């Protein structure tokens, strides 16, 4: 047992290596679980058109779609349309945040206002943004303004409603406790109300992020000369079917990226909450 001293660090090392290995396999397993359904779907997409079960013209294999996507990228079309869409989405989304968050905080704080306004805001939210697109086009024309306006409209109400409900539902005991420490209304708002309402506000921010893309794409299909929605519509009219699918895939991926970014921001700002996984 003279080697006991020597053996000990070796065992420790072995254990560490085992831990690392375990972590890697756990990661791999998670990656597999997350992607297996998507991979199966893509495989089916590749194989089924080739078997002739569906019409290849309308439903080309996935590899052809990827080729078309690559072609659009090389030609620079994809970037142009993506940039056009993103500019509109982001402008509308940011404007909505700029308006809805201060307004929502104020309305939520002033309870009577909230009680009177909530049914109206609910009504507005449930008026599908696309249903009033014609109104925007009539009033603002076919240009950028009406696109940004429709994104603004679609983002505004989820943001507003969630901010209001976040402020209204702040635990009154926390307010009481802060007031008992002599906080002024301004610091009460800054140090208690806003941080307490933040998780609910983020529900609105994520909803707004999702709908800002959704609504924009649809709006671009109706009257536009650029943007991903236009790309899809144009590709369909011109019978460039693989290109049409390429546009659709780009939008899906964009939606996932936006949601992921907002989720990451949310986790950063509300990392005090119980973590979801555990």
């Amino acid at each position, binding site marked *: 047992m003279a080697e006991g001293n020597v053996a000990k660090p070796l065992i420790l090392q072995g254990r560490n290596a085992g831990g690392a290995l375990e972590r890697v396999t756990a990661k791999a397993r998670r990656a597999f679980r997350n992607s297996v359904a998507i991979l199966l779907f893509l495989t089916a997409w590749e194989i089924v058109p080739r078997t002739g079960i569906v019409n290849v013209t309308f439903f080309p294999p996935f590899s052809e779609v990827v080729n078309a996507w690559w072609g659009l990228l090389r030609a620079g079309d994809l970037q142009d349309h993506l940039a056009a869409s993103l500019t509109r989405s982001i402008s509308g989304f940011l404007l909505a945040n700029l308006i809805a968050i201060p307004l929502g905080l104020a309305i939520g704080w002033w309870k009577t206002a909230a009680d009177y306004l909530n049914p109206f805001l609910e009504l507005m939210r449930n008026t599908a943004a696309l249903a009033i697109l014609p109104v925007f086009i009539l009033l603002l024309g076919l240009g950028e303004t009406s696109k940004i306006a429709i994104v603004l409209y679609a983002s505004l109400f989820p943001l507003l409603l969630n901010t209001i409900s976040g402020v209204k539902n702040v635990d009154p005991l926390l307010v*009481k406790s802060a007031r008992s420490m002599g906080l002024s209304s301004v610091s009460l708002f800054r140090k208690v109300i806003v941080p307490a309402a933040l998780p609910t506000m983020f529900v609105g921010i994520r909803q707004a992020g999702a709908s800002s893309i959704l609504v924009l794409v649809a709006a671009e299909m109706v009257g536009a000369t650029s943007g991903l929605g236009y790309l899809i519509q144009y590709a369909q009219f011109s019978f460039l079917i693989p290109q049409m699918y390429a546009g659709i895939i780009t939008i899906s991926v964009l939606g996932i990226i936006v949601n992921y970014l907002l989720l990451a921001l949310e986790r950063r700002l509300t990392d005090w909450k119980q973590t979801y996984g555990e």
Partner: protein
Amino acid sequence: MTTESKISIRHVHKAFGIQRGSKQLKAENQPVYALQDINLEVRQGEFMVIVGPSGCGKSTLLDLLAGLTKPGSGQILLDGKAISGPNLDRGIVFQQYALFPWKTAIANVEFGLEAKGVGRKERRETAQRFIDLVGLGGFEHRYPHELSGGMKQRIAIARSLAYDPEVLLMDEPFAALDAQTRETLQSELLRIWEATGKTIIFITHGIEEAVYLGQRVAIMTSRPGRIKRVIDIPFESRRSEEDLRSNPDFVKLRHEIWELLKDEVSRAQEQEKSKTLDAYAEGRSSAKGGVRHG
């Protein structure tokens, strides 16, 4: 009235007006009389316990002492001056801890110091000292949801002590804890009280807790709350006694308070029952009314 009173509560009345709330819109418009002619003197450095049945107005009284609400009539003096609002010269500890969930334990303790305008470095040091005082060294950077109920209440106590209030107001602070944690925290509180010399007003509905902690115990009636009697608890330095709870004098006092309290408790329960029934009847009749009007 002694001149050395830290707090004087004089002829304080408090009633609540018509309840907002959708169902009770048509409810009897008569106000709820929560407190009626409350008189109480609390000495500097005293540990005063107020015991009463639930719903008798204990929390209402504490809110008044905190300056969060104003009495309907009468006055509350702190060092001879009327209380005009919340202030850092009084600290409150609530039953439900009221910790800010987005702040770590130490940041919670710093909250009142921040409100007081203490600089960052000193704030951290003071907060650390009080976290150590309540025995939670090592847990500074945990968030409230990572702490047990007893730990949360320790942090809440540290938060209230950190900004050095003259009076500590505690509203059933241990009621939500399990029996063992409660007993530990009770003796810890006595230790802290002896170490800091704060004036403490401690509210509870537990008789044993009242006798164990208080130098004096004020017994309240059912609603409208009045002070029925104030009883002296003559144990000196309670911590030296090993098992005070089985001491015959302790048992006698507990029984005496129970005798004073039991009618109030059953009356309070009656009130509770009739209130529920009223609310039910109210709900029924307004529903019928709704049909008639619709």
